[in-house]
């Protein structure tokens, strides 16, 4: 089923509420933004995954020094 792209315009001065289809320009901008947002999100997720890897490495090194899991976790946020 084809998705319909509509905008609810609420004029706060008059109280008028209009639901209308997106213009071609608005639709293009909307779709482009979503593609960009997805790309930004994936970059961010990759950064988080890299941080998790560093954290796991640090925990392993602390364990090798003899710290318990709880002691090592207390040192790393």
């Amino acid at each position, binding site marked *: 089923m084809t998705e319909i792209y*509509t*905008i*609810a*315009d609420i004029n706060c*001065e008059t*109280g008028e509420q209009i639901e209308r289809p997106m213009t071609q320009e608005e639709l293009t901008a909307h779709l482009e933004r979503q593609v960009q947002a997805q790309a930004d999100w994936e970059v961010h997720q990759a950064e988080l995954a890299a941080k998790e890897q560093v954290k796991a490495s640090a925990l392993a090194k602390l364990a090798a020094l003899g710290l318990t899991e709880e002691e090592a976790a207390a040192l790393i946020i």
Partner: protein
Amino acid sequence: MAQTYQLIESVTLESNTASINFSSIPSTYTHLELLIQARSTHTQPNDFVILRYNGNSTAGAYAYSSLQVLSGYLTTENGSVNSSTFTGFCSISGDNNQSNIFGISRIVIPEYKNTSVTKTGFAVGNSAYGTGFESSITIQGLYWNNTAAISSIALLLNSGTNFKTGSTFQLYGFTKA
């Protein structure tokens, strides 16, 4: 002037809608607050609401920071996103979720008409996540690198095409005593 908290406008969607746009926001208040109870058509457990002010979609005009707690554990900490064309990132429910679950967010925008200050704000939200009613609790810092008075606020989704039928959006205004 007595302190007031007034409903400016409220909308409940009767059909799926891609964007909500509050326009011609009166300049008679001191602060604004948005209450959102919404669900996205995105086929994931959750989605995120984003905001744009005055139709500004310029790259780098906005930033945001976000903390997310999932089932009692801090799982995500977002730094400010450079070159963002929006702010917000408030968690709401997605469509891969139990039916009739809607995420909620409260967004506060202080001094929205004060042209001496860069516009900041914050948001708190909660959306059910997964089949066990786990909570995705989010706290956001919002930033628009602009001192213009805010006269319109557009709400869009990060990933989904539409806000689902039954989603509600309420804009309130505060005046200070």
